[in-house]
């Protein structure tokens, strides 16, 4: 019964408008993000002035960078904040300026002007480089020495005071410092990174993560619509009672629909990944590099499948719970909150639904975070099963006194 039902539910999805909207929006979005270029794949040369940046977890360096950033923001009198994810420019008044200067002085143990014109003297020296990434790296690489007795915890406390003055969503929120600190790579590090990308990631793996990064943003909300349409189709077509009174168990009905939704939504994602991998495969071959045929596919399965499962399962649960589309708003808030709470666009997976990796490569760094990443995806896979099980229980309850586990799930 289960497999037959699954097949029929898949067929039904193929007749659903919301499914085609899902496919079109997803394909349009992802194809507008991936350009198929391999410019990041050039082998580093020893005489380059800049090799890109990498992230390190160095608290001392992080404090010094943050203090420099704070000093410059005070100097310009402007703070960029993102309360609820939207940009807001905060201008500080004289009283706030003095309070902030005092924080800088307490952290550095020096007068504010000495910090500005001493530690940050280089910042005010013009540069001749035309490499934008290098210029950004140089200016954002400014440091202000913190006093020796200042612990990281005490520094975070001071940054909380800064947040109290400039408001929520600034770069001084301690949780945003979890991402580590971006530092310019040395030649050796650049070579190591290049080798990791060509040997470990075999080119396509590095771009596969970028594909997943973009896709995961869309998949945080997009599956809600076909899933909710699937959950509410009985109500919309006024055929609930006819179906409720049948012999099939609630678990067979709900799980077959859920599985159909997941499979049918995963298919266009998988196909898009396979298609979009082709230019990278081709370019890699022309560069004489050995590319991984499954570079995109393996990441899509590990990265995006648990997300589709979780979002779909939550829609099933909320659809059954509210018997209406209210769940869409809850999930929109969830997706938005998850996206906006990300401390960084690279790594810092934690328990976030949307796993960000908005960069090509950084293979060595990814390998360090792989355990955290796998735990995150595993968590969402388990969570989705709990959601579907709860949805099946609610469905059974709606069917009157129908039990959950009766009926033969595997009957042909």
């Amino acid at each position: 019964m289960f497999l037959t039902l699954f097949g029929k539910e898949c067929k039904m999805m193929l007749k659903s408008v919301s499914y085609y909207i899902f496919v079109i929006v997803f394909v349009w979005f992802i194809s507008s993000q991936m350009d198929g270029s391999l410019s990041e794949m050039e082998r580093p040369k020893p005489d380059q002035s800049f090799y890109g940046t990498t992230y390190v977890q160095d608290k001392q360096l992080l404090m010094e960078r943050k203090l420099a950033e704070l000093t410059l923001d005070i100097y310009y009198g402007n703070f960029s904040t993102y309360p609820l994810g939207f940009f807001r420019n905060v201008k500080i008044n004289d009283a706030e300026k003095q309070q902030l200067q005092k924080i800088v002085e307490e952290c550095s143990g020096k007068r504010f002007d000495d910090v500005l014109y001493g530690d940050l003297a280089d910042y005010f020296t013009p540069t001749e480089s035309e490499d934008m990434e290098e210029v950004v790296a140089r200016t954002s690489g400014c440091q202000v020495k913190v006093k020796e007795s200042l612990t990281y915890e005490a520094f975070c406390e001071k940054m909380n005071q800064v947040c109290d003055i400039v408001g929520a969503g600034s770069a001084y929120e301690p949780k945003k410092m979890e991402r580590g600190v971006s530092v310019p790579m040395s030649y050796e590090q650049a070579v190591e990174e290049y080798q990791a990308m060509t040997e470990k990631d075999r080119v396509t793996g590095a771009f596969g993560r970028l594909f997943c990064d973009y896709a995961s943003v869309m998949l945080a909300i997009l599956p809600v619509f076909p899933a909710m349409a699937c959950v509410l189709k009985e109500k919309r077509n006024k055929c609930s009672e006819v179906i409720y009174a049948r012999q099939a168990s609630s678990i067979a009905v709900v799980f077959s629909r859920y599985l159909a939704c997941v499979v049918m939504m995963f298919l266009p994602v998988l196909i898009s990944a396979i298609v979009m991998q082709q230019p990278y495969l081709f370019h890699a071959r022309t560069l004489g590099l050995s590319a991984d045929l499954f570079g995109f596919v393996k990441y899509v399965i590990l990265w995006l499948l648990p997300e589709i499962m979780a979002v779909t399962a939550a829609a099933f649960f909320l659809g059954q719970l509210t018997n209406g589309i209210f769940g869409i708003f809850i999930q929109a808030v969830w997706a938005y909150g998850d996206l906006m709470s990300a401390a960084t666009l690279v790594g810092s997976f934690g328990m976030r639904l949307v796993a960000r990796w908005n960069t090509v490569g950084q293979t060595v760094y990814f390998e360090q975070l792989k355990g955290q990443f796998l735990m995150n995806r595993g968590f969402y896979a388990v969570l989705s099963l709990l959601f579907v099980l709860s949805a099946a229980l609610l469905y059974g309850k709606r069917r009157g006194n129908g039990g959950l586990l009766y009926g033969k799930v595997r009957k042909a």
Partner: protein
Amino acid sequence: MIRISTKSGMKGEFSYSMKAEIAIQNLTKRYGDKTALKKVSLEVEQGMFGLLGPNGAGKTTLMRVLTTLTKKTEGEVSICGIPVEESKRIRPLIGYLPQEFSMYGNMTAQDALDYLAVLSGLNKEERKKRVPLMLQKVNLYEQRKTKVKAMSGGMKRRLGIAQAIIHNPKVIVVDEPTAGLDPEERVRFRNLLCEIALDRIVILSTHIVGDIEATCENIAVLNEGEILFHGTVMELLKNVEGKVYSAEVAVSELAGIQKEYMVTGILNTGSTASVKIVANGRPFADAKPIQADVEDAYLYLMHGKRGDEVCF
């Protein structure tokens, strides 16, 4: 022994030697403070059984309890000896045509029937045989490719019957099946119900007396959650024997007569009208006693229950 819907094991299994009967004892259903069914007791055996009552009488609640869609509050209900709480065993025995039958609009008649057959546990071979058979039985085979959303009310209702009998249940529950059908469609539908009631119980719940009169031998009348009458159509008619009169009256007198007596029919013929009156005694000298029909008996019963003394 006939097994449907399962290849093995006891699940979903029943025997046709099993007696088709429904036993309801002191059934009460409450929705919060409102009592929809009050200590209802009924015995239903094979054949057509009519459940008559006005809108809001509790008929649909009773149907929903029988089809396991609503939990009873108190009392005992069993179908073929199986308590209704055991929905796993009850559902294979029940076919249900709800008041407003519909299916996914973009499915064809054949696909909808096949989908519901899967949900009823029929395997591929069984579906291959039964789906066309049922479509033929309800005269929908030629329109099997018609989408549900394109079907007329009558076609939908016939598809509803096909889905209710697709898994060969012992009991079929049909709730207000003829509402909205044209006369021809209604007669065809009633005949279909009688045909399928030959070897099972068909409970026909309706407020349309004509449907009951044309199809059912045994009936129950439900009003405000209580059984007012349970017996045969003949017994119901007996209650009103000698109490139905016909008279020719002036049209100008109609309003007064309607106020004073229970008028069950008026036929205007210009300045006079022929009225049908139910009353305990002869209403006026020239009123002639006539043969009562089920509608007269039903109205007599209902007015009696409401304490409407005006006509008696």
